[in-house]
């Protein structure tokens, strides 16, 4: 287990461990988002996934998201772990935990975190199907970044 609030790891993620990092006497609400490997995407059957990351930068960018949340939602605490390497269907890829004094903020801040992860954190997913494989994220397809940086969400899922 790691004490790091913002962690890229090759090991299995314990939900409880991520949640424990944001427990606080003045938190009444903890929202947790758990991303799991889904079998079916647009009718294609995933056999397994591989995640790659620019680990040091990814941890920095997760920490940046944590800072952004603490500026927007006062008295929040944030922890995020993202797994890389080989993941099977139903395995946990990411756990986000946000604690806040009141519940509405915990939902909003948690949602913000997952959207930002999909915008700025250098992690990549390769889908492996029975009949092929492909790096996801539109890498050779339609979405260039006109400003050189990702400023909006380009991926809906």
């Amino acid at each position, binding site marked *: 287990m790691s004490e790091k609030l913002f962690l890229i790891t090759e090991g299995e993620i314990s939900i409880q461990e991520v949640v424990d990092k944001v427990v606080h006497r003045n938190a009444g609400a903890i929202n947790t988002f758990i991303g799991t490997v889904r079998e079916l995407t647009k009718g294609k059957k995933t056999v397994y996934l591989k995640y790659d990351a*620019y680990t040091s930068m990814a941890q920095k960018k997760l920490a940046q998201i944590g800072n952004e949340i603490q500026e927007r939602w006062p008295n929040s605490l944030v922890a995020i772990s993202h797994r890389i390497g080989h993941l099977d269907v139903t395995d946990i890829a990411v756990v986000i935990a946000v604690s806040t004094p009141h519940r509405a903020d915990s939902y909003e801040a948690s949602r913000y975190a997952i959207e930002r992860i999909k915008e700025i954190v250098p992690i990549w997913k390769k889908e492996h199907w029975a009949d092929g494989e492909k790096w996801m994220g539109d890498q050779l397809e339609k979405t260039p970044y006109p400003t050189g940086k990702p400023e909006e969400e380009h991926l809906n899922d």
Partner: protein
Amino acid sequence: MIKVLFFAELEEIVGARELVIEKSEMTVKDVKEYLKSQFPNLPVDRAMIAVNEEYVEETDIIKANDTVALIPPVSGG
């Protein structure tokens, strides 16, 4: 020298996680042009550029011992 990192599909195209450019100063644009000339199939313009783990603009200056990374559209989460 300037270190350049490649990830995901870009790593597969280049055939290496990193390479070194023997220069002491370049703009981000210079690095992109250099990579395009070396790897015509590399989708350089679809990638963001990070220098020392922060996203940068095309006009930013890269110095010796900096680490440049090509960041293709991310797909974590």
